[in-house]
């Protein structure tokens, strides 16, 4: 996994609440058995007409947002299905950070596994960042994971919380499975004890 350190990039506004994973990547694109190539279909039904033409007023189709790296989104982003194709599509498009007042749990976890930083902030602060993102390509925000700070294009600094373990994994680009395998002895011990206690499992 790529390391996430400090990101300065264009932020796009998507104020709609309850953006679900079917919107992020419709199921017709879940049939791939690869992890890559989903970016072109990110937000497909909002982004293209049925015949594949771009819908001009969709935010990521606007010239100033075509290289978006940060998404500022409405409440409860990523609700619905567990499909990791959603963060795969977001990452494949080039978005590395999503900011909202809340995220659905499964989506939130999936982001960290794919080098994407989801940031939860109170409504007032999301409003500030949404307004900043509305400015277009001149509004380049900076997200500093180490310092846990977002700097708006006006220089306003907003700090955010992040789970310490997840932060560590993102900063170092660590593979969860490798980390867990280092605890194989603990798993072995637990498994043996559980097999004694609940042999029917």
């Amino acid at each position, binding site marked *: 996994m790529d390391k996430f350190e400090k990101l300065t990039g264009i932020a796009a506004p998507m104020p709609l609440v309850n953006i679900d994973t079917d919107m992020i990547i419709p199921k017709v694109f879940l049939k791939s058995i690869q992890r890559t190539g989903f970016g072109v279909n990110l937000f497909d039904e909002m982004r293209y007409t049925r015949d594949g033409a771009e819908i001009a007023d969709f935010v990521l189709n606007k010239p100033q947002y075509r290289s978006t790296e940060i998404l500022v989104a409405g409440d*409860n982003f990523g609700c619905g299905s567990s499909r*990791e194709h959603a963060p795969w599509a977001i990452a494949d498009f080039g978005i590395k950070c999503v900011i909202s007042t809340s995220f659905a749990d*499964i989506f939130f976890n999936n982001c960290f596994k794919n080098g994407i930083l989801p940031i939860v902030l109170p409504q007032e602060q999301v409003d500030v960042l949404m307004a900043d993102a509305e400015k277009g390509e001149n509004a380049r925000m900076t997200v500093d994971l180490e310092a846990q700070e977002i700097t708006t294009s006006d220089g306003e600094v907003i700090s955010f919380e992040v789970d310490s373990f997840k932060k560590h994994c993102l900063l170092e680009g660590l593979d969860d499975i490798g980390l867990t395998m280092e605890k194989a002895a603990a798993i072995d011990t637990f498994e043996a004890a559980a097999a004694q206690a609940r042999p029917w499992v």
Partner: protein
Amino acid sequence: MSPKTLYDKIWDAHLAHEAEDGTSLLYIDRHLVHEVTSPQAFEGLRMTGRKVRAPEKTIAVPDHNVPTTEGREDPAQMTEESRIQVAALDTNAKEFGVHYYPVSDVRQGIVHIVGPEQGWTLPGMTVVCGDSHTATHGAFGALAHGIGTSEVEHVLATQTLIQKKSKNMKVEITGKLMPGVTAKDITLAVIGETGTGGGTGYVIEYCGEAIRDLSMEGRMTVCNMAIEGGARAGLIAPDQTTYDYVNGRPHAPKGAQWEAALTWWKTLFTDEGAHFDKVVTLKGEDIQPVVTWGTSPEDVLPITGVVPNPEDFEGGKVEAARRSIEYMGLTPGQKLTDIEIDTVFIGSCTNGRIEDFRAVAEVVKGKKIKDGMRAMIVPGSGLVRLQAEEEGLADIFREAGFEWRLAGCSMCLAMNPDQLSEGERCAATSNRNFEGRQGYKGRTHLVSPAMAAAAALTGKLTDIREMM
């Protein structure tokens, strides 16, 4: 010892390792796998030379892509991509040696119906699957939740999941349900109350008399949609209803093991005085048959209601409601019972079990669906299908004009050929009414099986109580 919730007890019994910051390794008893969210995980194992740590605890079944029409063994019924995905599961199941129910097996079906039916799901277990509706298994008092594909790979390799403990939420449904009100109405009414984000960060325990009175099928319906309220998992404490359902199933414990299991299962309840971080209480008598009008499961109203005005909402929901109403082709103030539908879908992991089909048969027996209506009933598993045929339900459905299909996820998410066309409007017993969920520009109204059956007869969203 301080009193514990049911969730606390299951969590504690599966904690394999806990770091100082609370990051924990939770041991997983059952890992269910389907074809859509697993190929990249198996590929990851292959690339790193890792094995499946506990293939005997891993159960795979194709369900999302499979056609539900007769003759589906013919590969021509699937698109090339669907074929590849199902073939990949075939190969992976064999190569890694996990339990497998292929399309040709009569036990094949939706993973969340097959697991309980085969006795893989038992009280007090941890159950995961790369599918958000894994919450279904919580009906047994098992801690069950959906995971992403990276986590699928993690569980395959280590039989554990990296977790932080969620908060405890209690949803109590007191008293009795009124006639015509079902488990589906309970679960939708709860989401209507809490919103789709209300359960985020929580594990819900459903309790109260109305929950206790439900069959296992009904409890599965309730827990299935915990995720639609934002909660990764929903739980119901096991009781005699649970034990009676589990007893005798192929993978349930037998003999002395059964007795030992039962002794432990009987300790699985929330202790008096245990702390809940959030409590929601609904009166069973107040719950009415409900229907969704919008494109989020929280857009729910009693069938006697009218399409709301977006201005009645606050904040970001105003724009979301406006967008929903436009997408759904509705008018604020329109009576819900005036909404005409052209399609009915009965099935899914929410409502694809035998009890659901009995409820449908009761409504449609001896009647005909409305002219021009496309109505399909898709059993949740091959065994549900067999049972419905043995009970004579299938004949009732066919005579009423329903298509009687083979088992799979079908039009719940429309990854197989069962889809809505642009502008079609469906009364569905499934779990999501998202834009495009059942087909591009298709419109979905979520309802109970009995309400879907009533709509098939009248051609409109219908108050089931008027047909009783």
